[in-house]
Every structure is written in C-alpha cells, then in structure tokens.
C-alpha cells in the first residue's frame, strides 16, 4: 500500500529543510541566486514584505506565471503564500504544484474568523505563530511546519525573538507540569488537549519550527538557531541588502555554524549594508502584520 501526501511526507519535507535558510524571491533570477548561495528552498512572491508594507493596499497570492517560472528554474523546493483563510488561493497553488504553501499574515487576511482547513489539502502548509497556543491551533488545523511571525519587512528581529522564546518557553512550562494540570493549560492556551498532552510528554512541537520575520544579518540567523529554531526564513533581508548574493551565502554559513562565533565573525566581514530596517515603535499598531491571525 503506497500512500502519497501523508502526515509523514508532509512533516518529513520540513525535516529535510532543517538547519537551512528559506529565501524570499520575486523572480527566477533571484531564485537562482538563492539556490546558488545554498538556500534549502525559496518562497516565491511578487513583492518582498518590505515592499508590500511600503505599497499598502491589499496583498494577494502571486501571479501563477511568476510561480511557474520559479518552479521551472530551481531544483530546490518552492513555497508560495496564500492569504489567511483563502482556501481557493491555496487550491490554485496546489494545482500549480508548489511544494509548500505558507498561509501568511504578510498577505491581507481573507477571513477574519477561520484559517484554512489544511487537512483537506495534499500539499503541506507552513503557518506562523506568536506563541504556543497559536502554534497548536495551526497544527490542529493541519499545518505540517511552523514558523514565528516576526514582524515581516522590518529587518528588525525583536518580534521573532519574542515569538520563538514564547513558543519554546511555553513548551518548557508544559513539560514541568503535573498531568492533572494539563487540562487547564489546554484551556488557557486555547489548544486541543491531546496535542497539549503530547507536547508535555515529548518536550517539543510535533513539527519543525523555523524563525521568520526580521532576519537581516548572519548574527540574526545564528541568534534564532541558538534560541532553538530548526532553521530560518529570510524575506527582505537578502534582496534588500547591498550585495544579495554575498549576504545570502553569509546567512547560510551562519545558520550551519550557529554556535561558532569565529565563523559567524568571519562570514560577517564586509557584507555591505544590510536592509535599512524599521524600529517596531515606528509602525502603528494597525499596520503590524504579526497580529494578523489568531
């Protein structure tokens, strides 16, 4: 009995991406630069988050032509973003044959109540979370990979650090609890009890968790890894820097050697200017992306 699109194949692809860097690219040329630099996958989109932020308006799924060009260009996995709750965009991306769908707060949400029922798809999904409860709600809906939400397009790691600490701290608290305390913990997390019980027993999420949102330097990537990330997504941080190919290679090296400060120092030399970045306080609450989704 041969079965495709099982939980093991969905979560398994994310396991193969561990210790690696997934890069946002907006065209085939950038996709090739990313692959050459050692990216483990690319995220195909029309505009990187910093440009989405600058442009305003409604941000949607990318043009299928762009996604097809990128699929045809690289041999590494290709991911693409659908709006939160927009299951038809997800159906379209599945039909295009992408390897992973990111149900992403970087695009304008299409549904303010429901996320996509990800169990209904053959293609696997990655979703963002700010804390353990949110991560478990997404996994319960079928997400086979998680990432932090960071604050995309800012070049500011502060929110991503908050999120990875929050998720991993939440796991440590569950592990320390008595079994009879897990019922209330599940209620307070807003998460299904069976998943809460499983995490308390295993001490880790049942899926891979990457850091995303605001990574702009090799040190940012290594910080994410030392805080317990399984890998990193870099959006605007590469192609909004002065020398994208060089920055991409340096972030890949720092992600592999995340505990080796001498190597991180070496690869950080002379990279040119990283993306300019925005302080979190400079972004009005209504324009923050990480608070989208629930």
């Amino acid at each position, binding site marked *: *009995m*041969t*079965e*495709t*699109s*099982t939980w*093991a*194949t969905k979560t*398994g*692809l994310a*396991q*193969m*991406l*561990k*210790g*690696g860097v997934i890069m946002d690219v907006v065209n085939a040329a950038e996709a090739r630069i990313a*692959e*050459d*630099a*050692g*990216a*483990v*996958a690319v995220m195909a989109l029309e505009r990187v988050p910093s440009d989405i932020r600058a442009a305003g308006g409604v941000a949607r799924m990318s043009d299928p032509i762009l996604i097809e060009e990128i*699929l045809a260009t690289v*041999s*590494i*996995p290709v991911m693409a973003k659908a709006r939160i709750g927009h299951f038809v965009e997800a159906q379209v991306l*599945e039909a295009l*044959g*992408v*390897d*992973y769908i990111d149900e992403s707060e970087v695009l304008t949400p299409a549904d303010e109540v429901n996320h996509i029922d990800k169990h209904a798809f*053959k*293609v*696997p999904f990655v979703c963002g979370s700010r804390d353990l409860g949110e991560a478990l709600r997404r996994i319960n809906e079928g997400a086979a990979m998680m990432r932090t939400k960071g604050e995309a397009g800012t070049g500011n790691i502060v929110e991503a650090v908050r999120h990875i600490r929050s998720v991993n701290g939440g796991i440590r608290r569950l592990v320390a609890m008595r079994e009879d305390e897990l019922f209330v913990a599940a209620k307070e997390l807003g998460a299904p009890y069976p998943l809460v019980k499983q995490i308390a027993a295993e001490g880790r999420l049942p899926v891979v968790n990457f850091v995303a949102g605001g990574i702009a330097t090799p040190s940012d990537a290594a910080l994410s890894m030392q805080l317990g990330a399984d890998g990193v997504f870099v959006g605007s941080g590469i192609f909004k820097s002065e020398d994208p190919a060089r920055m991409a290679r340096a972030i*890949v*090296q720092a992600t*592999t*050697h995340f505990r*080796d400060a001498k190597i991180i120092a070496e690869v950080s030399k002379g990279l040119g200017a990283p993306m300019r970045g925005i302080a979190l306080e400079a972004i009005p609450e209504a324009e923050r992306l990480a608070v989208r989704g629930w």
Partner: protein
Amino acid sequence: MAATGAAGDPVRIGVLSVQGAFAEHVSLLRSLGADPIEVRLPQHLAGVRGLVLPGGESTAMRRLIARWELREPLLALLRSGIPVLGTCAGMILLAREIEGGDEPVLPLLDVTVRRNAFGRQLESFETDLAVPALGDAPVHAVFIRAPVIARTGPDVEILARLPDDRIVAVRQGPILATAFHPELAGEPRFHRILLALAAEIPPDAGSGPR
C-alpha cells in the same frame, strides 16, 4: 545491542550536519548504543569509524561541504574503507554520476542517480518495501522528493526495488545508500549494519584532520 568496538568503547559515527535531518540519525544511532558526533568542520572527523550522510537539500549540502573543505577529508576516510550510510540527499552525495550534469561530490558509489525522480512534493509517498538482505519484515520507507538509482555498476548489490523495478537501496562493500528515509520511520536495520561494519574498524584507523 550496544555498538562497541574491540576495546568495548562505543563506536564513534560522524553524522554530516551541515544541513538536513541529521538530528534524526544522531538520535537513532544513540539509541543503538553508538557515539554519534555532528560533523560540520574537518576537525569533527577525528576518531570517526563510520559515517552517515543524511537527507536534506543536496544542492545546499554540496556548497557547505565545499566551503568548509570537508570534501577531501571525507573522501580520505571513505577511501580508507570506513563504512557509510547515505540516505536520500546523502545517496546523491555518494553517487559517481548524477543525471543532468551536476558535479559528483564523493563519487565512490558506482551508480547513476536521478534527482527528484518522482516529481515534486505532491508525489512524495510512503510504502512497505521488501529488503531481503534485512530479513523478512518489510521496511517502512518514506520517500520525500526522492531520487532513484538509474544505473548500477558491476560491484553494486541491489537491496531493494519498488514494484515498478526502480532501484531504491544498494550496497557496495562498506557503502550503503537508500533513496528513502529509514531515520524517519524508526527503522534501525540499515544503521545496525553500519555499526557492525564500524565496530571492525580499529579505533585509530580513522583519519582526523590532515
């Protein structure tokens, strides 16, 4: 069950850890009584008596191997006869020839591999596979954007085929390679063969950095 050498010490196995699912191999090896070590730089190879090349993205892995000058010391170790298990991307790294013209990396296994042979992620699958060399119980095999072996040389033993005859596991002396992921299914038998071969390697035979 403990994988110990002649002196009774746990056998040190280097797990290439530049990228990919290396942690799964490390924990499986540890559960079998071995002493796994993550290899990111040449100096991590000191005292290693066997190697695992895990799954991951072979394009990323080949670049990291080149950047940190791991290729020569890995080749020297493999040429000295220490055993190796390559899974998925690890099998691609070991192949003498890669279809499509990619440069081989550690070309000691006399096969030609075809990358992403089943297509994209939607074609990833799991199945039960007969592997007679491992006994009667089938192997539960998880294939993820997997390669296949399109050609085998005369010294290569075929360990497993899919029902359509495509070759997905081989052995050439101390070199074992699978297109699927035993480490994702908790399948220990390939690793046990590796450990049995590694236990025969004298502790000091493995080369450290050169």
